[in-house]
């Protein structure tokens, strides 16, 4: 069993190469204050991170961002990662890629490309990401398949596209996706800021789920569909990150090591950086990674709960955002004393269903504006 002092290897390394992105999706999970953290590790610094984490047993590597294609050294990092034995995943919008680059990545040893779409229709897709990218994404998805990669398509679902789940899955089928992720928006970063304008109704969720399950049955063995349930509508929390400091290590663009990509919001963290500390020390010794590792940090009702080893008390960031204390039970759990307040909030948003507040698109200008407001 995991304790603060005893951890297995960081099996999953998420390398957020940059916060730069040509798209402006209003549900982005990047931090709102990303404009304050724009410095980026150099190629050599990233290579050192890859080597050190691999030595510790990291196996799955995600190149993410922002848009990782913005990094001109991506080919170099892929080649290094592959030679170290990582299974390399590129998590991308497809914008910044062309046929030649898809091929160059293949030659460098990239294992898999996940392409995100914003919607199944060109108009909605382009509106949501603030860019005329739909046709290019289609072309890139075809290239990914043509060049022999496994292809995962990712759609983030919310109020504006969740009714199109059937069309989304038809598009995925036509593109011959191997896996499709239907990920209902999780409310972190920009998504949290835009929550009132993104959260679907319970009715929408129910009907989307039914359609997804039907497709899962019909396409078994052909296309795997992962339907990530919107946890605000559940009565048990998700096992966030499979437990804090358990298998998941995020390195932010500036080298900050985080137990999950939104952990920077939790007050009191020391935010160790790979420029100053070794990955090994950060994982095993740093106070941040021990803070919620294992079960000793838990309060009631988690502490004595017989399900704590299943869900690890849910998500620390969500506990913070919804209760003001990151060490509380995630209020998605109906055993949490704050669960009723969460239900009330969901019901209130549902009752409004009016977009009084416009969507705030994710870009550096808005980020600076928001930073000024809070500082």
């Amino acid at each position, binding site marked *: 069993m995991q304790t603060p002092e005893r951890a297995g290897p960081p099996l999953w390394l998420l390398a957020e190469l940059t916060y730069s992105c040509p798209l402006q999706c209003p549900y982005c999970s990047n931090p709102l204050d990303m404009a304050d953290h724009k410095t980026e590790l150099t190629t050599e610094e990233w290579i050192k991170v890859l080597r050190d984490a691999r030595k510790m047993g990291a196996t799955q590597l995600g190149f993410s961002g922002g848009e990782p294609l913005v990094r001109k050294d991506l080919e170099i990092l892929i080649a290094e990662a592959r030679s170290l034995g990582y299974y390399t995943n590129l998590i991308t919008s497809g914008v910044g890629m062309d046929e030649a680059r898809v091929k160059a990545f293949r030659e460098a040893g990239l294992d898999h490309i996940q392409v995100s779409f914003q919607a199944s229709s060109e108009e909605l897709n382009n509106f949501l990401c603030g860019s005329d990218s739909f046709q290019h994404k289609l072309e890139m998805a075809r290239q990914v398949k043509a060049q022999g990669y496994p292809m995962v398509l990712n759609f983030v679902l919310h109020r504006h596209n969740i009714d199109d789940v059937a069309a989304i899955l038809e598009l995925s089928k036509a593109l011959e996706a191997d896996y499709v992720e239907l990920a209902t928006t999780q409310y972190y970063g920009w998504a949290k800021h835009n929550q009132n304008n993104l959260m679907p109704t319970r009715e929408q969720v129910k009907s989307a789920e039914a359609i997804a399950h039907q497709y899962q049955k019909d396409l078994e063995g052909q296309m*795997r569909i992962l339907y990530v349930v919107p946890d605000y509508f559940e009565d048990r929390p998700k096992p966030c990150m499979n437990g804090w400091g358990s298998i998941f290590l995020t390195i932010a663009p500036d080298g900050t090591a985080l137990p999950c990509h939104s952990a920077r919001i939790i007050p009191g963290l020391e935010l160790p950086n790979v420029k100053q500390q070794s990955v090994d020390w950060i994982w095993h010794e740093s106070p941040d990674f021990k803070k919620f590792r294992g079960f000793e940090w838990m309060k009631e009702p988690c502490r004595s709960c017989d399900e704590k080893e299943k869900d690890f008390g849910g998500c620390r960031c969500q506990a913070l955002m919804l209760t003001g204390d990151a060490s509380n039970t995630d209020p998605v759990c109906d055993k949490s004393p704050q669960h009723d307040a969460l239900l009330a909030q969901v019901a209130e948003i549902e009752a409004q269903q009016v977009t009084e507040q416009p969507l705030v698109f994710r870009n550096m200008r808005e980020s600076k504006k928001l930073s000024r407001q809070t500082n």
Partner: protein
Amino acid sequence: MSTETVYQLNPLFRLQWEEAQQCYVLLYPEGMVQLGASSAEILKCIDGEKSVQMIADDLSAKFDDDSVAGDVIEFFDVAAKQGWLNANT
């Protein structure tokens, strides 16, 4: 599944020894299966040429145990259903 079927590893998966985990793993997009010693032993035999029956016989002989063959055939059934294998046609 017929025992005459010839399989190869689905190219979406990669079989690899992991020193830190002291086991073979199957890697696929954003995921990993940790394999037991016997599963790994069988997967290593899959070469796109030998049939299920041939691999079952080889491993029975190797471990000098007739009951191995049945386990191997059962494993192929499970592995094919998991999508780890493609049948050669």
